[in-house]
C-alpha cells in the first residue's frame, strides 16, 4: 500500500522528496531503516486501475489480520505486481536527488499528462482485527502544487478514541511548505524547504548555444571574442550548479496541550561525480533547542553498494554517536552484460549531444558529465536486482541491524534482525556509571548482580572496591521479523 501511494504520488507529479522530512532520507534509509517485526504475510491486488485491496496476517503480539482498500480517482498504470516490480522501486533505498533543472523538465512532461484529471484523490482504509482499529488515509490534490493529506487512526484504546493528523502541503519546484496538525496533544508543525539554484539552467544554456550559432553565422566581428569570453565565464559559473543541489530547510513544532516545543533546521548538498556519475549527499541537521547536531555523508560507491555515515553530537550533554550503514545489492547473472544492454537501449543515447562545437571544450565537458550521470542512474533504475542487504550499526548503542530483502519466486520477502550489544564491550562498572551515556549500564549491572547471587565474595570486590573487575556484555537479539508479500 505504501508502494501504491508512492505510485500515486509519482503519477500525479508530486515529489515527496522535496518535502522537509526527506531532507535526511538519504542517510535515514541506510541507517535508521525500519525493521520488520514478527511474522507477516500480505496479499495485495490491483483489481482495477483505480482500486486496490490487500489482506495481511501478522503475529505482532498476537495473531492479527488487516484488510485494506485503496481507491484512486486516477488510473494507476505504473503499479507493478510483485512479480514484475523492480526491487529498487518496491523497497526504500538510496534515492537519486535530481537537480532542479531535471525536475523541472520532468514536471513539464507530467503536467501535460496529468492535466486531464485536475484534482486527483486517493482514499485508503485499513481495518485491523481483532480490536477494530481503523486506519484511513485521504489525499487530495487541489492544484498542481497543493495537497491535503489526512491520516486517521481510530481505536477505542486511544485517547479520544483516535488520532487525526492533517497535512496541508505546498510543493513547488524551488520550495515546499507544510502545515501539520495532529489531534494527539494538539501538535502543530510548520516545515519549510528551499532549494537554491537556477531552475532554468538547461534552457538558458540552449539559448546561449543558439546565440553562439547565430554569432558564428554572422560575420566575424570584434565582439565575438568578448561574447565567447562571457559565455565561458557564464559556463564556469553555471558548472557549479550543474548537477548539484543545495537545499535548506527548517521545521517548527509545538504541542499545545503538553507545551513541548521542537525546532530543527537542515542543510543538504547533493552532487554527482563527474566521471562516474555516482551521487553523493551530505546533510547537516541542527536542533538548537536541545543542542543536537547531526551530520551525515552518503555515497553510492558503485551500482550495487551505498555507504553512509552519520555523526551525532549534543553540545549540552556531550553525547556523541557514530552510525554506519550500507546497502548491498545483488544481481543474479552477469551484471556487465546487462549494463551494456541497458546502455544500448537508453533513450539518452539518441539524444547524445553532437560535438559540433569542437572548440567549445566547456560544452563538451558538460555533456560528457551529463551523459555519465544519466547513464549511471539509468542503469541502476533498470537493473533487475534480486536481493538487497542493508546493514547498520551504531557505536553508542552497540547494535547491529540487518535487513535482507529480495524476491523469491513471485514473492517479495523481507527479513530483519536487530542484535543488541553486537560488539562485546569490556567496561568497568564504575566507569559506566559516570559516563553520561549508559545504555549498557543496565545489562552490565544485571550481569554483575546476577553473578553476585552465586558468588558473593567475588561480587563484593567488584562493587565496593571498584577494581578492574569487569564484565562482558553479551549479544542478544532485540528484534526479529519476517515479512512475506505477494501482489498482483
Amino acid at each position, binding site marked *: 500500500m505504501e508502494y501504491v501511494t508512492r505510485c500515486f504520488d509519482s503519477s500525479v507529479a508530486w515529489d515527496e522528496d522535496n518535502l522537509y*522530512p526527506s531532507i*535526511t532520507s538519504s542517510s*535515514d534509509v541506510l541507517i535508521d531503516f*525500519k525493521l*520488520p*517485526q514478527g511474522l507477516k504475510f500480505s496479499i495485495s491486488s490491483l483489481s482495477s486501475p483505480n482500486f486496490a485491496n490487500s489482506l495481511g496476517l*501478522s503475529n*505482532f*503480539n498476537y495473531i492479527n489480520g*488487516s484488510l485494506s482498500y485503496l481507491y484512486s480517482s486516477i488510473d494507476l498504470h505504473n503499479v507493478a505486481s510483485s512479480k514484475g516490480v523492480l526491487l529498487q522501486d518496491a523497497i526504500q533505498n538510496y534515492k537519486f536527488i535530481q537537480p532542479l533543472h531535471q525536475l523541472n523538465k520532468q514536471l513539464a512532461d507530467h503536467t501535460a499528462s496529468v492535466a486531464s484529471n485536475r484534482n486527483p484523490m486517493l482514499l485508503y482504509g485499513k481495518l485491523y482485527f481483532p480490536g477494530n482499529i481503523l*486506519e484511513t488515509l485521504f489525499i487530495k490534490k487541489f492544484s498542481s502544487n497543493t495537497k491535503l493529506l489526512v*491520516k486517521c*487512526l481510530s481505536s477505542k484504546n486511544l*485517547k479520544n478514541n483516535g*488520532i487525526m*493528523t492533517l*497535512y496541508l502541503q505546498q510543493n513547488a519546484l524551488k520550495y515546499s511548505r507544510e502545515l*501539520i496538525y*495532529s489531534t*494527539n*496533544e494538539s*501538535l502543530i*508543525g510548520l516545515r519549510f524547504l528551499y532549494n537554491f539554484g537556477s531552475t532554468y539552467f538547461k534552457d538558458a544554456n540552449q539559448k546561449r548555444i543558439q546565440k553562439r550559432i547565430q554569432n558564428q553565422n554572422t560575420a566575424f566581428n570584434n565582439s565575438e571574442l568578448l561574447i565567447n569570453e562571457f559565455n565561458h565565464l557564464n559556463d564556469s559559473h553555471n558548472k557549479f550548479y550543474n548537477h548539484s543541489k543545495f537545499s535548506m530547510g527548517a*521545521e517548527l*513544532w509545538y*504541542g499545545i496541550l503538553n507545551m*513541548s*516545543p*521542537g*525546532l*530543527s533546521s*537542515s542543510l543538504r548538498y547533493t552532487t554527482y561525480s563527474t566521471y562516474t556519475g555516482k551521487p553523493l549527499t551530505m546533510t547537516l*541537521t541542527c*536542533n538548537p*533547542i*536541545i*543542542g*543536537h547536531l*547531526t551530520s551525515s555523508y552518503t555515497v553510492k560507491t558503485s551500482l550495487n553498494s551505498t555507504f553512509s555515515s552519520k555523526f*551525532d553530537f*549534543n553540545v549540552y*550533554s556531550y*553525547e556523541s554517536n557514530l552510525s554506519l550503514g550500507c546497502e548491498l545489492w545483488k544481481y543474479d547473472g552477469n551484471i556487465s552484460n546487462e549494463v551494456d544492454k541497458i546502455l544500448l537501449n537508453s533513450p539518452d543515447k539518441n539524444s547524445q549531444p553532437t560535438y559540433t562545437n569542437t572548440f567549445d571544450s566547456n560544452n563538451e565537458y558538460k555533456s560528457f558529465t551529463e551523459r555519465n550521470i544519466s547513464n549511471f542512474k539509468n542503469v541502476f533504475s533498470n537493473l533487475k536486482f534480486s536481493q538487497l542487504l542493508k546493514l547498520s550499526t551504531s557505536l553508542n548503542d552497540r547494535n547491529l541491524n540487518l535487513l535482507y530483502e529480495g524476491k523469491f519466486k513471485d514473492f517479495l520477502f523481507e527479513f530483519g534482525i536487530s542484535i543488541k550489544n553486537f560488539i562485546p564491550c569490556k567496561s568497568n562498572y564504575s566507569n559506566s*556509571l559516570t559516563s*553520561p*551515556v*549508559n*545504555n549498557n*549500564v*543496565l545489562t552490565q*549491572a544485571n550481569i554483575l*548482580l546476577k553473578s*553476585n*547471587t552465586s558468588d*558473593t*565474595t567475588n*561480587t*563484593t570486590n567488584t*562493587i*565496593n572496591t571498584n577494581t578492574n573487575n569487569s564484565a562482558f556484555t553479551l549479544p542478544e537479539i532485540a528484534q526479529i521479523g519476517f515479512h512475506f508479500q505477494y501482489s498482483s
Partner: protein
Amino acid sequence: MSFNITWDSFEKDSLKSWCKQILHDSLNNSNKRPSILASNIIIQDLNFGKISPNFEILEIGDLASDRFRGIFKIKYNGDAHITLFTNIQANPINIYWKNTVNNLLNNNPEFNILPELGSISQNLSIPVNLKLSKIKISAIIVIVFSKSKGLTLVFKNDPLENIEVSSTFDTVPAIRNFLQKQIEKKIRDLFREILPGVLYQYSQKYVANQLHPQLLNQKRQSKFNNYNNNIAATTTATTNTITITNNNNNNENENDNENGSEVKKITIADINPDGPDLSPANMLRLSTLSSSRQTLSLDVFKIDDFVQRSSIEFFNLYDNQLTQYLNINSLNLPFSQDYDSNKISKYLNNISNFQINNYKKSNGNNSNQKPRRRVIHINKKKNKTKNKDKNKPIENDILISNQNNQNNQNTNNNNIINNNLNIHQEPKIQPNNTSNNTSNNTSIPESKAPSPLAVFIQNSKQDDHPIPTYEESTLIGSEISSAYNYDTKSERDYYDEKALIKSPPPLYHSQPSRRNQSPPSRNNHRSFEIRIRPSLYTYSSVLSLSLGV
C-alpha cells in the same frame, strides 16, 4: 522475651549487594520504562548506617505454631542513606513521541499516524543523582501471620517523620522543593500500600512453596506405587490365561495397594482451611484425574474419594457413602478371594442403604410406596421373596433393586440404578422363585464356601438412560466373556447376546478353580454353562464347559 538485633550484620557486603540487587530489580521491574527516564535507575550507594532502630513489642494477641498476631513499635533515627542515579529525558518532543508510540500505539510498527519527528526527537539525557538521607521513622505496626494466609502488615500511623532529599538540582529551589514533596509522598505510599502488598505476596510465595511440594511428593510417591502394582498385576493375570488365580499374588497386590493408598490424605481443608481457593496440590490431583481419561493406558490411577464421571451414572455424587466402600473407579468390588461374610454383609448393607436412599429420592421422601425388593435367603430350603424394611440390615442377603421401568415411569431415571449383579460360580444353583418377574439376571452363591468370585457388573439400558462407558473407569475389554448359561429348571437363558460384557481387570478374572467349587446343590437343578473367553491381549481364548446336576 527480648530481641537482640545485631545491626552491624547489615553492614556486610553480601547483604548490601543483595539489597542492591533487589532494589535494582524492583525499580526497573516494569517492562515499560516511563518515557521521561532515559536509562534505568541504578543504586549507586546503599548504607544502612551505624545506628540501629528501636524495636518494641506492644502486644502479642495470638500465638500458635501456625499463626501469630502482634503489635510492634519501631523507631528509627539513624544515618542510613541511599543514592540513586538515573538519566532523565530532557527533550519534550522525545517524551511525546515515546509516549504515543509505546502507550497509545502499542509499539505496532504498522501505524504511521504520527508526523515524522525524527530530526527533533533526539535523545537529550540529563544525569541525575538523588540522595535520600536522615530518614526518621516512628511507626506502630500490626503484624498478622497465618500459615495458610501469609503475612499481613499494617501501619497504624504515618511512619515517616522526616527525610532529606538532595539531588543534582539542589541549586534550583523550585525543583528541590518539588522533589522533596514528591518523594515524601511516594515514600508514604510505599509504607502504606506497596510494602504491605509486597510482603504479603512474598510471604504467600514462601508459604505456598513450603507447604505444597511435600504434598505433591507424597502424592507422586503413592501414585508411583499404585502404578507399579497395577503393572505387575496385569502381567501376572494375562500370562496365566487359565486364570487359576493364585490368591497369594492377589493378596500381595491388594496389600500393596492398600499400603500405597495409606499415604496421608490431602483435603482442601488441609491446604486452605478458610478459602475455597484451589491449591497447586489439588490442581495436580484434578489434572491427574482429567489426564487419566486421556490415556490409552489400561490401568487408570485410582484416586481416593473421587468418582469418575462414568460412575456418576451409577451413583449420585453426594451419596458417597457407597463409594467409600466400593471402589467404583476401577470396578474393584470388594468381593475378594478371601471370602469374608462379615465384610460382604457390610458391603451389601451399604448397597441396600444406598439403593433405598436413591429410591426415596426418586420417588420423593413422602411417598408411601415401599420399595419392592427381592430378598434371597441362602441356606434355606425355600427361598422367599419379601419386602424388607428400608433400613434393616440383612446378613448374607443380597438386595437387588428391582425397579422396572413400568414401576418407575414417572420417576427420575437418573437416580435409578439397575445393576445386574452376577456372581459366577459353578455349578450354579438357581433359587426357585427368583426370576419370575424380573428381567434381571441374578445368580447368587449358594454357599458360604470361600471361592474366587468373578464379579461382573452390568448395567442394563433403561429408556434413554445412557450406558456408562467403562473405558474411563477400568480396563477396556481386556477379555470379553461370552457365556451361555442354561438352567434346566427355569429354562431361561441367563446370558443372552447382550450379556457380552466387558470384564473387570484380569486381576479379578478368574475361572473358579476346582477346589473352590461349591458343594453340589441340594435342588435337582441342572445347569450347564459354556463360556468362551477370548483375551484381547494374548489372542487366546478359553472355552469352558460346566455342568451342574
